[in-house]
């Protein structure tokens, strides 16, 4: 040992890495998450803002600006939550607790619909059910002589159906996980006590999974109230407004303050329900099932109902996954939307412009705007995925290693906040903050950079989540043993943590990528005309009535997402293998 005091050196290193990094992170997260929220609140407290509050809440306009959209939003929220609980719960019960044939297949089928973005389902619905009330070409059914009433073609009902079809698999996943934690022993001990099936179901199974049911209900509720694509595509044409479409409309038409007010109200609606559900769940005792040997689950015999229920489940799964995709595919090939399966042509994909078809527009792969949008989309996905994963890993690392400290708590609370905020409201907050120049910095509104920053901030919760699970694979011991060698924090990160975590990180990054590629509600406010993305272009085409183009682009998005998901799956199973050996 030299005469130089080693404590001093390590002390300053301690100072540098152990204290300053978290502070920088807190500052960063505060700028990303808190600043926009504070700014949007402040923006509604200016004279203009206060006028907007009044216009929205207490004026002759408020019926249209607030109450009707609120009613629609709540109907959608509660309707979707109940529908999802019903469908997801039914499927979870069938797959986990009964002797239905091929439970694994049904399980996979039931998780698929969530992979298909809600605007894809909404477009597919329109392709089939659209009627001629609003002019434009009618949908498949009407052209083929089946009259579609307005309530089934437009507005609340189809929006509700499309959203349930999208979100029920989320409910399924949550409920199925809870049900499979109900061990056979729990049920058999109730049998030993003499309880019959209904008694076992209502006395044991249902109470044990209640927290999961509440979680599923609140997540699907929050998803439905903040969804933009489905009500915009199926509701706006008949002037059905929800809070998110209203908020979009306000900002689009330049009534920024009113939009901000609506954004705050939307955040309130969505967050209050999530908060309430959280209180209900945490108010109850955490039902950690005390499991012993073997995680068997008890399967009840369905008897004669085995095959009918199996058929019903398959029908549900196919109807919400394969059918919409096929409809989109057929529609992108069929010149007439009424004749989905005849005269197929590749015109909408690769056709040259100038002809009779599609008002002379070229196919999507010949349209420079579209090629541009494709690259922009991929660029956006990659950039956001990269930034969030780095940020997520750094945050997760700090949170995990400093567990229990105030710092860690503040960080994790901050990082999870975007989860409570509907993305369209989040986008509005970003417009409030960056819509005007801040000091020497120019306004970022309409730039690619703003989109990236907002998206990265909004994806933080997922990034931190996957960062944490990745770090679960790198135990503190491993890192501490590196610490003992005297390696710096950065070096430990690069040499120890990163290599161990890389696969899990990639998988997490791909998830963020997928979310970005198919996102509409964030980009719809923040995208710029100079750098359009695919989902936005599809939305534009759809609102202008070019269904084939919209469907073709949606299909393209699906393909990109699917490919990315497959890569993620492959990575995950490799990781699994590595962990097993």
């Amino acid at each position, binding site marked *: 040992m030299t005469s130089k005091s080693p404590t001093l050196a390590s002390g300053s290193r301690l100072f540098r890495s152990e204290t300053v990094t978290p502070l920088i992170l807190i500052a960063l997260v505060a700028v990303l998450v808190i600043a926009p929220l504070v700014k949007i609140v402040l923006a509604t407290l200016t004279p203009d803002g206060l006028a907007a509050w009044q216009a929205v809440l207490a004026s002759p306009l408020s019926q249209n600006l607030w109450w009707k959209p609120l009613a629609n939003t709540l109907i959608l929220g509660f309707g979707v939550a109940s529908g999802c609980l019903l469908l997801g719960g039914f499927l979870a019960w069938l797959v986990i607790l009964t002797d239905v044939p091929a439970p694994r297949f049904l399980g996979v089928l039931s998780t698929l619909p969530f992979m298909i973005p809600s605007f894809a389902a909404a477009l597919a619905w329109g392709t089939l059910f659209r009627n001629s009330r609003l002019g434009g070409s009618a949908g498949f059914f009407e052209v083929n002589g089946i009259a579609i009433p307005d309530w089934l073609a437009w507005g609340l009902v189809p929006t509700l159906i499309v959203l349930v079809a999208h979100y029920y698999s989320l409910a399924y996943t949550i409920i199925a996980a809870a049900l499979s934690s109900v*061990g056979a*022993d*729990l049920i*058999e*001990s*109730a*049998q*030993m*006590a*003499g*309880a019959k099936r209904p*008694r076992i179901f209502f*006395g*044991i199974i249902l*109470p*044990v999974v*209640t927290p999961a049911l509440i979680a599923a209900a609140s997540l699907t509720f929050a998803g439905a109230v903040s969804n933009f694509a489905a009500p915009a595509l199926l509701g706006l044409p008949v002037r059905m407004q929800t809070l998110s479409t209203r908020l979009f409309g306000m900002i689009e038409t330049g009534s920024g303050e009113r939009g901000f007010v609506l954004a705050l109200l939307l955040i309130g609606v969505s967050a209050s329900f999530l908060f309430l559900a959280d209180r209900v769940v945490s108010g*109850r*005792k*955490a*039902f*950690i*099932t*005390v*499991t*012993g*040997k*073997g995680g068997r689950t008890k399967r009840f015999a369905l008897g004669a109902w085995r095959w009918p229920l199996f058929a019903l489940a398959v029908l549900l799964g196919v109807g919400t996954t394969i059918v919409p995709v096929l409809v989109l595919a057929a529609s992108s090939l069929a010149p007439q939307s009424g004749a989905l399966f005849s005269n197929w042509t590749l015109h909408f994909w690769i056709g040259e412009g100038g002809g009779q078809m599609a008002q002379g527009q070229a196919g999507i792969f010949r349209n420079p705007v579209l090629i541009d949008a494709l690259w922009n989309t991929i660029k956006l996905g990659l950039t956001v995925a990269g930034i969030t994963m780095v940020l997520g890993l750094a945050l997760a690392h700090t949170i995990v290693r400093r567990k229990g400290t105030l710092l860690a708590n503040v960080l994790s609370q901050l990082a999870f906040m975007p989860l409570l905020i509907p993305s369209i409201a989040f986008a509005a907050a970003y417009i409030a903050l960056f819509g005007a120049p801040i000091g020497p910095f120019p306004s970022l509104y309409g730039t690619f950079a703003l989109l990236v920053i907002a998206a990265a901030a909004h994806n933080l919760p997922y990034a931190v989540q996957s960062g944490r699970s990745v770090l679960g694979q790198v135990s503190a011991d491993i890192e501490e043993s590196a610490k003992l060698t005297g390696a710096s924090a950065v070096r430990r990160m690069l040499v120890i943590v990163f290599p161990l975590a890389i696969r899990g990180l990639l998988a997490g990054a791909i998830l963020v990528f997928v979310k970005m590629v198919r996102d509409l509600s964030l980009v719809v406010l923040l995208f710029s005309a100079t750098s359009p993305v695919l989902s936005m272009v599809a939305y534009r085409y759809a609102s202008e009535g070019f269904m084939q183009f919209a469907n073709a682009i949606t299909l393209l998005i699906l393909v990109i997402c699917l490919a990315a998901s497959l890569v993620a799956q492959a990575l995950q199973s490799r990781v699994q293998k590595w962990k097993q050996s």
Partner: protein
Amino acid sequence: MTAQPAGIADAIKITDLVKQFGAFTAVDHVDIAVPKGAFLVLVGPSGCGKSTLLRMLAGLDEPSAGEISFLGNTVSSGTGGVVADPRQRNAGLVFQSYALWPHMTVANNISWPLKVAKWSKADRDARVNEVLALLGISALRDRYPAEISGGQQQRVAIARTIAPKPSILLFDEPLSNLDAKLRIEMRSELMRIHRATGATSVYVTHDQVEAMTMATHVAVLNIGRVEQFGAPIDLLREPATTFVATFLGTPPANLLPVVRRGAELIYGDLPLADAAIAGNLDSAQLLFRAQDIGIGRVEGRPSLAATFSEAAPIAGQTMVTAMVGDVRITGMVDGYFHAMPGDPIELSFLRDPDAVFTTGGERVAR
């Protein structure tokens, strides 16, 4: 159903019971009968069919063939399936995992089965208090299962099972999740409860000490078959097979393969016993208890060179294990014994073999 009057019928009678999972036979022609108040212990290595047998007794699984009757009433049979379902059997089962309902407090876990059985509120409350006191867990009544320790969970599971006063108590390795000290404590507790309730108990374990200390009757199971059934002391004294002989007893008994040479049975080159005890067999296995094998040469007794492997002191004596070739032999010496692993030692056979078995493992009648 048998015509026997209930008074003298066996509390539990298992006749020619078989359970198959596809082509695999988990329980293979089992016959066991025990009187009322008996404490029957099922022992055997992992996977021998103990839990499967117990689940058939509980009425959770149906037998493939054979019959189970309680007090003369058939409750399950290979032809009729589960004749009486679990709640009609007046039986209680303590699960290995405890299977406490996580959403109910301790008190509710105990009272729910009573509620299902339609007890009045006053009776329920009284009984809950009674069993909580019996198991010494009254203070835990308002806790949830996730908030109590493993040993406490186990007591709750037992309390829940005995609360409805079942006439048959079934236990599936209830102590296997507990640490050694708690296990010994709970063992005597279970015995006390067994006596207090007067129920007939069936207790599954693969711990032979548990079997020996608790049982009035023991059935040793091996690959689905009953190797031997009887009182614990009989199984120790007169093991019917080498499997039973080596499975029961601490320290384990020694088995030495011998062949006939003239009028003697020899192990290697060493004459160990008179060939007459093996009848007309040419080769056999001899059973020597650990206490019948000493360390060091003893005049007039056969002895054998061995390599010391380990020593463990037990109650003033030391249990010494040594290797002769591949065969592990355990003997006892008074006081403490020290040696380094690998040291040569001399083993002597102090008495004649305790029992003789065929090479196939069957006991040779004397």
